C-alpha cells in the first residue's frame, strides 16, 4: 500500500507542482471566491458532513453526542413503521408529481412558445404565479371543506355522485391524492421559466433546415430539433423538480394537519421535523436527513443519465 502511494506521489508530483504554481499566480481569483466559498462551506457543505456524523450518534443537544454505530439506521428501517409510511408517502408524491410536473412544465412552455409575444408573457405569469404565491394553497382547504357546505362536496352531492359529504383531509384515502393535485398546481416553477427561455433561444434556421429535410409534423420537430437543443435546460429543470418533489412538507402540513390522521400524509421531511424540533432526538433526525439526502442525490444522478439519451 505504502509503495502504491509512493508511486502515485512520484507520478503526480509534477501535476501538483504545476497546479500549485497556477494557484499562486491566480491569488486574486481565490480572493474573489473566498467570501462565497467560506459561507457556502459553512452553510451547505459542513451541515451535510455534520449531519452524516451525527446520524451515527445519540444526541439530544444537552448531553455530548454518544456513538451508536448503525443503531439509528437499524431502528429507522426495522422498528419505525411511521418512517416507512413516510417513505412510502414521499415516494408516492415524488413518483407522481415529479415526472408529471416536469412534463407539464415542458409541455406548457412548448405550447406557449409560438404564441404572440404579449400573450406569451401573460401566459408565463398565469402559469408561474401559483408557485410563488406564498401560502395561497390554503385556499384549497376552502374548496375541499369536509362538511356539506364545502364546494366540492356540495357539487358532487348535487350531481348525486355521493350521498354524504366526504371528509377530504381527515379520511386517509383522499388525503394524498388531493395533496398531489395541489402540488401539481404549484409545480410550474423555476424549471418552467428555464424551459420558456430556452425555447426562445433555439436557432430558427434549424427549424427551416428541418422543414427542408422533410420533418412532417410538430411531434417530429419536437423530438429531432427542439429536445436535443433543450438538453441543458432539461437537466436543470429535472434537478429543480426532483428537489421540490422530495422536499414536500408545507402543503401536507398545512392541509392535512401535523400530525395527520393515521400518518397518512406524513412525509420524510415532516418526520424529520417531528424528531428534530419536537422530540430533540437530533441523532435520529440526522439519520433521516442523511437518508433523504442520499435518495435525492441518487435520484438526480439516475435521471441525469436517463436524460442524456433524449433525442439521440
Amino acid at each position, binding site marked *: 500500500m505504502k509503495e502504491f502511494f509512493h508511486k502515485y506521489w512520484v507520478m503526480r508530483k509534477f501535476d501538483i507542482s504545476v497546479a500549485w504554481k*497556477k*494557484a499562486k499566480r491566480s491569488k*486574486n*481569483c481565490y480572493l*474573489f*471566491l473566498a*467570501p*462565497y*466559498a467560506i*459561507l*457556502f462551506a459553512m*452553510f451547505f457543505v*459542513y*451541515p*451535510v458532513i*455534520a449531519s452524516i456524523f451525527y446520524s451515527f450518534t445519540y444526541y439530544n443537544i444537552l448531553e455530548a453526542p454518544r456513538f451508536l454505530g448503525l443503531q439509528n439506521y437499524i431502528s429507522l428501517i426495522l422498528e419505525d413503521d411511521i418512517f416507512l409510511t413516510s417513505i412510502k408517502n414521499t415516494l408516492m408524491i415524488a413518483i407522481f408529481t415529479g415526472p408529471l410536473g416536469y412534463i407539464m412544465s415542458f409541455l*406548457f412552455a412548448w*405550447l406557449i412558445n409560438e404564441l404572440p409575444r404579449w400573450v406569451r408573457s401573460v*401566459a*408565463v405569469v398565469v*402559469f408561474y*404565479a401559483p408557485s*410563488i*404565491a*406564498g*401560502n*395561497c*394553497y*390554503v*385556499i*384549497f382547504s376552502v*374548496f375541499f371543506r369536509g362538511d356539506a357546505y364545502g364546494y366540492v362536496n*356540495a357539487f358532487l352531492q348535487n350531481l348525486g355522485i355521493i350521498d354524504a359529504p366526504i371528509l377530504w383531509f381527515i379520511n386517509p384515502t383522499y388525503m394524498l391524492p388531493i395533496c398531489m393535485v395541489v402540488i401539481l398546481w404549484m409545480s410550474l416553477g*423555476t424549471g418552467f*421559466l*428555464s424551459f*420558456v*427561455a*430556452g425555447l*426562445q*433561444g433555439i436557432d430558427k434556421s434549424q*427549424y427551416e433546415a428541418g422543414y427542408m429535410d422533410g*420533418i412532417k409534423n410538430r411531434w417530429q420537430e419536437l423530438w429531432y430539433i427542439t429536445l436535443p437543443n433543450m*438538453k*441543458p435546460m432539461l*437537466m*436543470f429543470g429535472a*434537478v*429543480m423538480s426532483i*428537489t421540490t418533489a*422530495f*422536499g414536500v*412538507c408545507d402543503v401536507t402540513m398545512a392541509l392535512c394537519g401535523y400530525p395527520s390522521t393515521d400518518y397518512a400524509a406524513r412525509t420524510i*421531511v415532516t418526520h424529520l421535523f417531528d424528531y*428534530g424540533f419536537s422530540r430533540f432526538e437530533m441523532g435520529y433526525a440526522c439519520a433521516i*436527513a442523511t437518508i*433523504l*439526502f442520499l435518495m*435525492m*442525490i441518487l435520484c438526480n444522478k439516475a435521471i441525469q443519465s436517463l436524460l442524456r439519451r433524449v433525442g439521440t
Partner: protein
Amino acid sequence: MSKKNKKTVEKEYRKPLVKKRKPNRSIAGDIFLYLFLVFVAFVMAFPIIYAVSSALKPLDELFKFPPKIFAQNPTLDNFSDLFVTMGKSWVTFSRYLFNTVFITFVGTAGHLIVASMGAFVLAKYEFPGNALFFRIVTVSMMFTGYVTQIPNYMLLNKLGWIDSYWAIIIPAFASPMGLFLMKQFMEGLPTSLIEAAKIDGANEWKVFRSIVMPNVKPAWMTLIIFSVQGLWNNKAATYIYSEEKKTLVYALQQIQAGGIARTGQGAAVLVVVMIVPIAIFIFSESQILETMASSGLKD
C-alpha cells in the same frame, strides 16, 4: 424634417399583422391547442382569482352558499380590519414590516455582491479547483434545505446568531441558485471585453466593477427576484423567538390561524402575502427570462 422621413420609412417596413403560418401546422390542431391552453390557464388561475375575490367580499358574502366567484359588493373592509387587528397587537405592524424589509434588503444585497464576485472568477478565469467547486455547488442544488436544517441550527447557535436577523441573512448570502445562474450568464460575456480592459491596465476588481457588473444587469434582477422571494416568504420561526423580531409573513399567518371569525382577514392576508412576489415577477419578467436562457446544466 428628418424625423418625419424616418417615420415614413419605418411604416413601410412594419411587420405584417398576420404572420405567415409555419409549415407542419394544421389549423385544427392549432385551434384545439389554444382551447386546451385557455382551459388550463383558467384552472391554474382559478384558485388565485378566488383568493383575491374572497378578500374583496364583505363578511356575509364569504359564508354565502352557493358561493359566487366574484364579489357582488366588493369592499376593502377585510384589509382595513386586518390593519386594525395588526394595530392592536403587542408588536406594531411597522415593526414587523421593518423586520421583513431589513432581512430582505440586506440578505439580497449581500447575496448579490458575494455571489457575483464568486461567479465572476468561476466563469472567466482558469484556476485549479474551479471546476470542482462549481460541481459541488451544482450538487448542492440537488437537495432541499431541510436536509441541512439541524446542523445549521447548531452552527448558528454556536455563532450566537440564534434570535437575531443574521440567522436568516447570512445563510441567504450563500444560496447556490444565485451563483449558478450568475455564472452561467457571465459565461456568455465575450472574454475579449475583459482582455481589452486588462490591456488598458485595469486590475481584477476594476474589471469586475466597471466592465462585468454593468453588463450582467438582467442576471442581477433575476438574483434579486429569487432572493427576495425566498426571504419575503421566510417565516423565520425556527431561528427567531422574540416576537419583535419576527417577520411580517409570520405575523400575518398567525392572524390567519385565528379561526372562523377571522375568515375575511385571512383572505386579505393571502392576498397581501402573495402580491409582492407576483408583482415583482411581472415587472421583471423579460429580464428573468433573458437570464434563464443560459440556465442550462451542461456536463
